[in-house]
């Protein structure tokens, strides 16, 4: 069927030939009977699939083409990739992401939020594809482009909008802002302003999982998903963490949202070898490339990666080829990108694609989808109203939360701890 999800349509960025395979696929400490993994190093056609299946047993390669699994599934059970409920869930999540970000832009230009605001329009497939597979206790670490990751993880639209408005009811009490979306309840570990600085934190969260399992002997299957961009992949922290994650076999998935642009720097101009997924095998972990504008493909890859991590088989590097429809931030005039490129990716809008898939496969009707859109619009409107009505933080909040134990402000000249000064709670104490 000629849909956007046709198995033979693979984004052509991996023109590799058989001779290069052995060099790239390093033998990893995996049992030969490990299930086929997604993300091949070869460009596959229908014919080559048989060759791959045959050589799988002998080569012990953990990586397989994305389309192979998809094709396999379709050929084996002749059913769709998702059920109706799942489809609607995915659709709703992506619509929420899109509407929310559009509303953010509006509010920014109306002067309700300030500073740096980075919007996620166009990349919803990645967030939805991965995060909707996670449980509440799994952790997500993101960058400054984190609104939609927080929403997908379960943080309420109200809390995120209030945080953007800088109100007390925000998820971080107004103290973090757009680039610091945290939620202990939903295990959203931020929100980081500098690129790359969240990756070690994600590695630590994954380490904590392993520690609980092996040292504290608790039942812990939590995985961590770290999202970051193509620019980050030239940063040292990325490589240091790939090394440690593979070395300690941590339950982590490194998701590269390769939208080809780091503000105004094209990925191709900044990187010696632009194929980021290839860097995974260099460290001893599978590297997968997937079409990030296609939520179902992303979901398939994510399922495999998450299952692998939960089983204790270690990390995975997933490169999602995606695109942001807006500029880097709301302050970016976005003049460098070619209009043709933008048009090309706009035609591959993940929401439109999913809608088409759902309707064509009779999973949902137009009316149902419309009602979801309406519901989300109302939700976002209500979030704005809530944020507008919420109070600004008072002076008393200035000195709170600097230290978990406020004795850290020290002992004043009068012999008392500074935090015992009655003016401390008012936020006017001398510290």
């Amino acid at each position, binding site marked *: 069927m000629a849909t956007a999800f046709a198995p033979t349509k693979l984004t052509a960025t991996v023109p590799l030939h058989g001779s290069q395979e052995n060099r790239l696929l390093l033998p990893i400490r995996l049992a030969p009977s490990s299930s086929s993994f997604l993300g091949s190093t070869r460009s596959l056609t229908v014919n080559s699939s048989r060759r791959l299946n045959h050589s799988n047993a002998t080569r012990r390669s953990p990586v397989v083409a994305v389309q192979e699994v998809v094709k396999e599934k379709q050929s084996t059970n002749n059913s769709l990739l998702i059920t109706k409920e799942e489809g609607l869930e995915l659709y709703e999540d992506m619509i929420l992401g899109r509407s929310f970000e559009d509303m953010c832009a509006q509010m920014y230009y109306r002067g309700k939020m300030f500073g740096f605001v980075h919007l996620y329009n166009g990349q919803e497939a990645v967030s939805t594809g991965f995060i909707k597979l996670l449980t509440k206790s799994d952790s997500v670490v993101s960058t400054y482009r984190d609104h939609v990751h927080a929403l997908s993880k379960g943080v309420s639209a109200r809390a995120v909008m209030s945080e953007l408005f800088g109100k007390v009811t925000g998820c971080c009490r*107004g103290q973090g802002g757009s680039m610091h979306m*945290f939620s202990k309840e939903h295990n959203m570990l931020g929100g980081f302003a500098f690129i790359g600085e969240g990756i070690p934190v994600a590695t*630590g969260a994954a380490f904590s999982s392993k520690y609980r399992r092996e040292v*504290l002997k608790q039942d812990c299957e939590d995985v961590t998903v770290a999202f970051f961009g193509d620019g980050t992949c030239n940063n040292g*922290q990325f490589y240091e963490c790939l090394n*440690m994650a593979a070395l300690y076999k941590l339950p982590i998935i490194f998701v590269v949202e390769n939208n080809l642009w780091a503000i105004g720097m094209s990925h191709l101009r900044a990187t010696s070898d632009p194929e980021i997924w290839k860097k995974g095998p260099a460290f001893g972990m599978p590297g997968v490339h997937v079409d990030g504008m296609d939520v179902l493909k992303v979901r398939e890859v994510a399922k495999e990666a998450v299952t692998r991590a939960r089983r204790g088989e270690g990390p995975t590097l997933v490169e999602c080829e995606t695109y942001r429809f807006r500029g880097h931030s709301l302050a970016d005039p976005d003049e460098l990108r070619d209009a043709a490129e933008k048009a090309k990716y706009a035609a591959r809008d993940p929401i439109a694609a999913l809608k088409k898939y759902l309707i064509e496969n009779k999973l949902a009707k137009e009316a149902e989808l419309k009602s979801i859109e309406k519901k989300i619009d109302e939700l976002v409107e209500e979030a704005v109203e809530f944020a507008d009505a919420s109070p600004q933080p008072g002076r008393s909040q200035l000195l709170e*939360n600097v230290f978990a134990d406020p004795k850290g402000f020290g*002992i004043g000249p009068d012999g008392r701890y500074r935090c015992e000064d009655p003016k401390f709670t008012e936020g006017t104490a001398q510290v």
Partner: protein
Amino acid sequence: MSAILLQGAGAATSLSPFNSIDSSKLVAPSRSSLSVRSKRYIVAGSDGTNKSFGSSSLVARRSEPLIPNAVATKADTAASSTSSKPGHELLLFEALQEGLEEEMDRDPHVCVMGEDVGHYGGSYKVTKGLADKFGDLRVLDTPICENAFTGMGIGAAMIGLRPVIEGMNMGFLLLAFNQISNNCGMLHYTSGGQFTIPVVIRGPGGVGRQLGAEHSQRLESYFQSIPGIQMVACSTPYNAKGLMKAAIRSENPVILFEHVLLYNLKETIPDEEYICNLEEAEMVRPGEHITILTYSRMRYHVMQAAKTLVNKGYDPEVIDIRSLKPFDLYTIGNSVKKTHRVLIVEECMRTGGIGASLTAAINENFHDYLDAPVMCLSSQDVPTPYAGTLEEWTVVQPAQIVTAVEQLCQGTGRVKQRGGTESEASEKEREKERKISMAAITSAVIAIAGIILGWITIELACKPCLESGREAIDRSLNPDYDPDDQDVDTSSDVRSPLIPNHPPDNSDPDPSTAIKSV
């Protein structure tokens, strides 16, 4: 990273460590009695020859009680004052290890991560034996990636672990500055208080023995502005163990600065469990004349200088500030209020070091109590040279400390020689006052004498004039005076004839004389 100089576990260092003087011996009250003061000297003298100064170990203090903190905390004083057991002797790195091991036993969430902390036992042997006991995951040997493994520790802390992150040398943590500043210090705040980061970042720093510029850094000056972290520096086995335990138990991120040259200090510490308060300073030697604030290795240079100063008649109060961020302004303030003079001795660079901040804090809070400007002795603003002589000149040496104290104390005639007391000073002031009043009286006397002499001169020179003048005044003031009265004074009668006895002549033949007689 380049090779690290290893200190042999049992070898004593060439640095002569000076323990804190037992304050119980110097408890003599600081009143003005000279006899008491000289008694103090005798006590100090005997100490100087036997135990406290100049020995290469602190073993001799075995039977003496340990120094309680200036501001007594329950934990500290309880341990030292109720100690009935003799305690056990160990080196500073062993004390750190003991503290770490006790905390790891106590809480299974405490773990260690760093380079060579596991199988190698730590480059300074602080984690020796821990990997065997607790396993490779609890004492994690990391690859050489400071930024990443510091961040990993922070991420693990957010999810409930309590990592102790070791920097093999504090200087290497410059590579982890991103994680320490942005995440360690700020995440609790930017997450609105949702996530705590109870990490301990520790490692050896400071100027060692010809380790070269990059291995001799003092990172406390770079980290001090980071909000949300605490910094402490240990200097004795006692406070090393206490601070390690307190730092691990704290919910705040704490950076514990150790010093490369202090790892082999020996001391007897209590057998009982104890912790040292993270925010408090330690009174090393109480005194009267000047407050010397210091920390880490410089504490020992100060104590060496103190010996010389005591012999010269000074009584310095030495405080090991221990808490580099925040400062214990209570202990420091009480000392400043007592002595009115402050000298800071630190190993940081002059620019932007802990001493610079401390000077500002003291000036801001205790300006009225100062009799002299706060003086700060710091290392030179140079990369630490390799050559031994040059290296010696970059850090503060005891002789400089002595000179500085003398300079500060000479301001108002305080304590120049042996036996100087406070009463002498006030006596001198009284004498001064007396001299001033004497001068005033003398001038007054001279003025009066001058007036009197002038009067006498005028009286003598202008006597007749004055007399007649006075008579005239009398006459005019006399109401009964009649100018026609002649008989008042015949000798001065102006109307009497000039020839007094001329009789009148009747037989005058000349008939022309017209004498009319009727």
